[in-house]
């Protein structure tokens, strides 16, 4: 445990050192490789009110992050709910599988940016298209994982339930879904990851406040230190959320791999 933590810390420190060395060597101009110091400075600047200016583009860093997290949370939530329902149907009903299976695979292979333009035409440039984009991106991984898990549930669990008097209509929610829970949770983790990678794209259009909007604005003014800061913030928060989801997975499905 201690060794693992020490190794990780050492890895991060080594990367930081490398970054600092490359920046300090001035191999490339600072606009290409901002120094750790410059990024740190931007972290302080964007987190405070200075010279009458509030953070970056009128919002503190924490507010940018909160806006992005809110979009990720909403999009993932709708996506997971829809994905579980759809996956259950696809896994249980052969007709639905034949009808919607290919569609889900099709949407899953599309890059989210490809249909984002269409969503903007449909829903405008406010919150709606961003939430819908994340929903559409997060739904397929959950649907696919759920459908596969549902089809993989051993028939004897269903037999056992029916022999214990479970009516046919109760089996999907009482037995199939809980049996599939470990795999569904893996699907949820993938979905939140996809939502994370998509949110920056979603925020390229009218995305302030939002980490993606902040990065986009910074790009316009060649503020690479702010861009890097945005990347680090979104990456670090993603790591934290994934750790939380892993914990939830262990709590909700402690039997994973042991039954």
């Amino acid at each position, binding site marked *: 445990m201690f060794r693992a933590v020490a190794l990780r810390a050492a890895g991060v420190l080594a990367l930081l050192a490398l970054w600092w060395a490359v920046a300090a060597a001035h191999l490339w101009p600072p606009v290409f490789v901002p120094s750790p110091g410059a990024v740190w400075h931007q972290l302080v600047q964007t987190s405070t009110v200075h010279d009458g200016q509030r953070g970056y583009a009128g919002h503190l860093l924490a507010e940018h992050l909160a806006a992005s997290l809110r979009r990720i949370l909403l999009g993932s939530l709708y996506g997971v709910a829809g994905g579980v329902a759809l996956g259950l149907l696809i896994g249980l009903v052969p007709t639905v599988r034949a009808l919607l299976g290919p569609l889900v695979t099709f949407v899953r292979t599309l890059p989210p940016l490809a249909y984002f333009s269409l969503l903007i035409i449909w829903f405008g440039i406010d919150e709606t298209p961003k939430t819908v984009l994340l929903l559409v991106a997060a739904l397929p991984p959950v649907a696919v994982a759920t459908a596969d898990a549902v089809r993989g549930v051993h028939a004897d669990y269903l037999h056992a339930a029916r022999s*214990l008097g479970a009516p046919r209509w109760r089996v999907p929610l009482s037995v199939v879904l809980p049996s599939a829970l470990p795999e569904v949770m893996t699907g949820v983790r993938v979905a939140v990851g996809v939502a994370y990678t998509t949110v920056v794209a979603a925020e390229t259009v009218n995305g302030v406040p939002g980490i993606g909007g902040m990065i986009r604005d910074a790009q316009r003014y060649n503020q690479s230190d702010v861009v890097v800061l945005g990347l680090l913030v979104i990456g670090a928060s993603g790591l934290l959320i994934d750790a939380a989801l892993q914990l939830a997975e262990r709590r909700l499905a402690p*039997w994973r791999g042991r*039954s």
Partner: protein
Amino acid sequence: MPSPADTPAGPVEEGAGGGAVALRGVSLAYGGRRARVQALDDIDIAIGAGEFVTIVGPSGCGKSTLLRLVAGFLAPTGGTVQVAGAPVTGPGPDRGVVFQQPRLFPWLNVRRNIEFGLRMARVPAARRTARTRELLELTGLADAAGRRPHELSGGMQQRAAIARALAPRPAILLMDEPFAALDALTRERLQEEIRRIWQATGTTVLLVTHSVDEAVYLGTRVLVMSRRPGTVVADHPSDLPRAPDPRTEPAYLTLRESVAAAVRHAADPRKDPHVHPVL
């Protein structure tokens, strides 16, 4: 569902209302027209209430398939299966099933697993709790009630599976090689347990096994099945004294030998001394 009669053993007369299970001319074939496999052929079995019937046969003889027909997981392609006088049309709480793997619901603790059938039947909480406590004690799981299946040993899991199957008071308990996946010591202990549980509850039991010893030791009646197409080739009543240990009785050895001979013959008729080998 009325509980079965308390008589611990003895077949009930054919056609009597007390018959727990009746299979008449049951056959099962699967596969398409080209590769049709006759799994079971013309099986007639009548099991009386309170009997402990064991079915033994070579692997692939369709004994598990037969059990699944009674459970209602499969429908026969010919003949009828009746339980307590009513034709079987699907699985139901009048037939408890114990599988080779415990198949406990991993997201529920032992208590909730046992309660599953009672909740499905909307048994009021007070009676549910009482019934569950009774079964936890019957199977020696009182201390493990709050634990999840993955925290239990294989033997304890199978005990819980037995308790879960007994909870709705089925007319018959169907057991599909329930001890095959356990280590030898645990298996022996559970064999004694299931005899004790059978005596304590008076429930009818149909147990499928590939072990001649298990079949003879447990059953009040031992059925031998032939290789595919599976059919019943021998039906031995067994009335061994239970104390101190039936396996020390000469009658046990005699019965064991005739069942073993029947299984050997069912597995490979060519090795029968009265038949010339084909090759």
